[in-house]
């Protein structure tokens, strides 16, 4: 792939599909066809994106300014009343706070674990085969779908499960802890599960990043008398910074959207201890049938995601 990479491109005029440069465009059939060609190739994408992306977004926004929709045959517009209801609902803010806690802790620990394992796997102290074996084992959690991760940890963390048995045998806890159904531990427990499931993505990406850092930088620093800690802060971190920012933003976007893991482990409970924005919205729509209010929450989440996406796009442009 890299061998065929070329920076050489024929000048614009030579491109077969570009319209003739100097001549005034005359709308001949041939020119029209040439102009239409790229749109022909793009038409399946455009149709799909209009019908299943643009239309639904317009729909959800219009739902959000109606009194109830879907269940109501002739809904009336109510302006921004639903936004007032949602933003004044303590349950929404509880879900927002939970989402923020779940997401920020996940992102930070993902990064720390991912970077630690990446550095360990990048060591020169161990043989290639040993490192390959560890890499496969460390990447394992990444290969399971969220539904599987959820049932697995429900089994491990159940009151009479193996985690409790181990913790009890070493004396860390006295008695059966109901990790996922105790309001004080549930949020921490689902966050832990999400950490387990998500760090390999960072590990793999950062490992690739580490391997891209020129060794000469470390050589030069060593000769200047820099120790491992200094080298880490003066070379590794600055070199990986753009990658770390992208990974963290992307993970932040994904984790705020997490639904299946919460839904299948705690369902947002007990009571509202692990309610996040996506489960809050889902329940509003599909268990309480408040489709207009659910749409309002969905639009608020969309706006928030677009802000994050803007920062992500900006961080990407900064890297180029």
């Amino acid at each position, binding site marked *: 792939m890299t061998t065929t990479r070329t920076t050489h491109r024929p000048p614009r005029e030579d491109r077969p599909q570009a319209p003739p440069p100097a001549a005034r465009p005359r709308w001949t059939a041939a020119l029209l066809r040439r102009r239409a060609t790229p749109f022909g190739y793009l038409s399946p994408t455009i149709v799909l994106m209009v019908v299943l992306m643009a*239309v639904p977004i317009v729909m959800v926004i219009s739902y959000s300014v109606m009194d109830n929709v879907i269940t109501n045959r002739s809904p009336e517009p109510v302006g921004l009343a639903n936004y007032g209801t949602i933003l004044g609902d303590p349950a929404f803010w509880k879900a927002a706070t939970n989402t923020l806690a779940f997401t920020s802790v996940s992102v930070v620990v993902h990064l720390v674990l991912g970077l630690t394992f990446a550095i360990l796997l990048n060591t020169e102290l161990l043989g290639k085969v040993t490192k390959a074996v560890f890499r496969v084992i460390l990447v394992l959690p990444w290969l399971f779908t969220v539904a599987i991760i959820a049932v697995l940890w429900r089994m491990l963390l159940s009151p009479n499960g193996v985690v409790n048995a181990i913790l009890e045998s070493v004396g860390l806890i006295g008695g059966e802890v109901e990790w996922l159904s105790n309001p004080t531990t549930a949020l921490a427990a689902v966050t832990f599960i999400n950490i387990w499931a998500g760090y390999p993505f960072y590990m793999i990406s950062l490992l690739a990043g580490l391997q891209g850092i020129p060794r000469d930088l470390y050589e030069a620093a060593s000769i200047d008398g820099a120790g491992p800690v200094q080298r880490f802060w003066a070379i590794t971190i600055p070199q990986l910074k753009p990658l770390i920012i992208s990974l963290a933003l992307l993970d932040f976007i994904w984790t705020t959207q997490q639904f299946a893991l919460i839904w299948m482990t705690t369902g947002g409970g007990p009571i509202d201890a692990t309610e996040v924005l996506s489960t809050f919205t889902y329940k509003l729509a599909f268990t309480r049938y408040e489709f207009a209010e659910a749409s309002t929450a969905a639009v608020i989440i969309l706006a928030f995601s677009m802000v994050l996406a803007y920062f992500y796009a900006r961080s990407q442009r900064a890297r180029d």
Partner: protein
Amino acid sequence: MATTLSHLPKNRPDLRQHRTPGRKNPGKQAATLVALVAGALFAGLPVLWMLSSSFKTNGEMFANPPRLVTEGFNLGAYTEILTDPVKVRFFVNSYVIAFAVTGLTLLVGILAGFAFSRFDFPLKKTLNVVIVSVQAVPPITLLIPYFGLMVALKLYNTYPGLILTYMVFTIPYAIIMLTGYFNTLPRELDEAVKVDGAGPWTALWRILVPIAVPGLVSVGIYTFMIAWNEFLFALTLTRTEDMRTVPIGIQLLMGQHSYEWNQMMAMSILGCLPVLVLFLFFQRYFIGGMTAGAVKV
């Protein structure tokens, strides 16, 4: 290591000597190993426990003290699942949907990637920004209108409904990746077929697509995984048991009669098999596809 050292100036033998001897500090080596073993236990023990639980009888599941291998070791949970037509149907559904999504995404992605890579057209920049940013649209935002839309289009509780839905999430990624891939292929290649009087269509399918196979594999694996793992839309846009996919099937198993933990674990093992196989056989493409899109969208 040799390649690294060759970068160093030849007239500085002191530099070359600096690295080679005395670097294999046994203390450091042991510490690295211990840390990696700890990580491997953290990552691997739960997976090992899932595997061992799938061979237990349901009565032994929560035996105390916990044991990895029990007397009751048996394949009962697997035969139970593979002989139950309802559960087999979950797997059939998942495979049909995931393969369809992968094939269609590659097709649509190749066409659009080719347009972005080889043509100039009005609104190109705008379309590109749209393609990149729709990736951040939260699934939950689309879910509510999809429910009504799919009923209206008569796609509710059908394969095409789920397939089209998943394509909305896989196509932007496929376009970005394949545009980038086609950009690395020199335009002189397309020119070759022009000599024979053939158009861009021939250039795409005869020349570019065959060379782009590694890129297509990466994108295909990523797409397959998205479709195989999806939960939220599968839960909401299907209603009858014969349309459910594996992730929903696992959840249904959890709700049914008393928890059949051994069956849930066996179904999980069967459910992760395709991804595991993809990973083991296509490790390079797999990692390339999963990380490149995220890292370099």
